[in-house]
């Protein structure tokens, strides 16, 4: 029996469809947080005073700063997409870079905030907390659980954005190795057969490596936009969740 090549699956390009898929995924993320919001709602209902007290121990200012950081990162994200849609790859890269920088600063602030709380012995299961009321234990459990889960999503989001940044920033490049002993003559022709360039290599080689750098055509860019849009959707969702976390943990009194 002879080898039969697997024909390539016809690449269907359906941006709306892939966005829909992404949205479905986002819905599952919303429901993931819904589970922990449910816990929050119940414990808040059971221990309103302690939650009030707990909220006052968090630094509203720090939370507000982080809120602004995330909101701004959402703005740069959406600008990055807008630039790419308009064909401005460089602008898109800059905006994406800004988004990542803002995301990182969010995490840095978060680390300091956590560090502060842990420094005061306020972390789940600490001896300090054991002396406090049940409600405060629940509040801090939720504080660390919710912001931790959110931070995890920020980290994943940053990873996705970093990949996108790499894709957009690098010049597309293709390298092929062709084995060919001895003297080699090279010629380059365009897709429709026009001759572009001719040349020969010196004496003894066991092959040649050909590298091409090229800029993306319309269709490839289009696919990048779809990818960037989906990455952006994820990033915005992380923002939306924070929009709810912030008042729930820092403000509601």
């Amino acid at each position: 029996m002879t080898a039969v090549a697997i024909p390539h699956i016809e690449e269907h390009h359906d941006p709306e469809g892939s966005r829909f898929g992404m949205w479905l995924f986002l819905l599952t993320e919303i429901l993931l947080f819904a589970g922990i919001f449910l816990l929050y709602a119940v414990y808040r209902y059971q221990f309103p005073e302690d939650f009030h007290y707990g909220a006052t121990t968090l630094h509203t200012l720090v939370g507000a700063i982080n809120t602004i950081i995330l909101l701004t990162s959402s703005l740069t994200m959406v600008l990055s997409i807008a630039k790419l849609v308009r064909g401005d790859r460089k602008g898109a890269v800059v905006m994406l870079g800004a988004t990542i920088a803002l995301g990182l600063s969010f995490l840095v602030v978060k680390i300091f905030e956590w560090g502060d709380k842990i420094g005061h012995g306020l972390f789940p299961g600490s001896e300090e907390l054991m002396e406090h009321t049940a409600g405060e234990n629940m509040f801090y459990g939720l504080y660390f659980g919710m912001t931790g889960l959110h931070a995890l999503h920020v980290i994943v989001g940053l990873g996705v954005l970093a990949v996108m940044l790499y894709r957009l920033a690098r010049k597309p490049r293709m390298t092929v190795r062709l084995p060919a002993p001895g003297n080699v003559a090279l010629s380059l022709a365009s897709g429709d057969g026009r001759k572009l360039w001719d040349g020969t290599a010196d004496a003894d080689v066991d092959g040649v490596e050909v590298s091409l750098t090229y800029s993306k055509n319309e269709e490839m860019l289009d696919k990048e936009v779809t990818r960037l849009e989906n990455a952006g959707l994820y990033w915005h969702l992380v923002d939306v969740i924070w929009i709810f976390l912030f008042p729930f943990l820092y403000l509601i009194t």
Partner: protein
Amino acid sequence: MSHDAPGGVVSYLDAGKGAGFWPWLKSWIFTVDHKRIGILYLVTIMSFFAIGVLLGITMRLELIAPGKTIIGPDTYNSLFTVHGVIMIFLFIIPGLPAIFGNFFLPIQIGARDVFFPRINLLSWYCYVVGAILAVVSLFAGGGAPDTGWTFYVPYAVRTTTNVTVAVFAAFVLGFSSILTGLNFVTTVHRMRTKGMTWFRMPLNVWSLYATAWIQLLATPIIAVTLILVMLERMFNLGLFDPARGGDPILYQHLFWIYSHPAVYIMILPAMGVVSEIIPTFSHKTIFGYRAIAMSSLAIAFLGYLVWGHHMFTSGMGDTSRWIFSLLTFLVAIPSAIKVFNWVATLYKGSVQMEPALLFVFGFIFLFSIGGLTGMMQSALAVNIHVHDTYFIVGHFHYVMFGGTGFGLIAAVLYWFPKMFGRMIPRKPLYIGFGFMFVGFNLLYFTMLILGWQGMPRRYYDYVPEFTTGHVIATVGSWILVAGLLIVAHTVLKAVIKGEPAPADPWGGTTLEWKIPSPPPHENFVELPVIEAGPYHRPGGKTP
């Protein structure tokens, strides 16, 4: 051996063959072809199912007499936990959607693949990683988990066994499930072929579509619940720790918010299969197409409202107990509608008792018993007595095994010729069915009786009053497994030795019967255009 279909089209099984072992293996494990991914699932899921069965049999052996028979209590406790985890998360939830959904959903709507072929492969890898983790949890560190598949806190947080790994395994498997669901919903929305309107989709597709929505909307809840259990164990988060004000009952809420809808993830695809098989073997269009299609959505929706019926004795408020009880009674109605429509389809049909149809009959009978015992459990007064007894164990084996399990076998027998291009001999299947049916009822009906008499579940040992029942059940399990072995042997042999199958061995009407057996890569040479309902036959009304 070659499956070259007429017209020189190469079957999906043969593509990539002949270039040596490694290329061949790669052509499978890196495939993005939905049919091959279906086969990958078939092989992996069935392997784990075999392990689950083995564990089940070992438990039955232990329970044949009071006191220690072959294993100690720790081992027994791990056995039912791992049996439950494997059967639920590795066998029955992925089972039908991942195997037959992957294989047939695109074909049945006239598509060349699912919408996200690569994510589809990723979802299989998630399954494999989850499965490996589940196996690791058996052997690593503190010993196999011993919490029951429900992982109830506080016990699941206190025990020193490998709960964290097992829980993480379930989490990863949940991911696999979400990705499959996401893929199916998008595929159904975006890739139906020309003329394939919503109400011309086969009922199997409707079932899978409804299932996919449950997978999307329910699975995240178990994901976060399992994350919390892990955090609780690793970082002492305290959210469920009663000593610090946490509420163990909230854990039960979160767990069942997922796990009740999950039972419909298990049964809906099987109902879809039944809705395919009955029209085919009675040469008749389905009775009440729209009612069946809509009842799938109704089950998906109502299934979300009833989780509390697992917690009637937990100390939940009395108000919510009756609310959940009332809602639970309502969820039975769409199932009843389906059963009535199936039976009505047989009326004035031209019925051919192929093995697949026989297993469907088994399904209807056993699932009805399971469902009706479910109704008994939803009655508050009865539930208080039977909760956490063998009555429950009987109920869920009737619905899961008698329902989905038999449905799965029916699906194998029905679609085998299409998937492998070979026929399965009938006679051994009839015999196998006989054994399975008798063994099944001996095993599980006895459990119902034991449960009513007060035998609690998850019991390593029991008082002597219950001995007779346990002996009967154990003997039943042997007969059941004998039947299973006959069926499995027949099926496996047919993979290699079966007669070649024609494109349409049964006289089916849906699209998969219009392409060669086995189907070519990318399914259709030219995408079909649909002009009639899925079960339309000559003599029926024009669509």
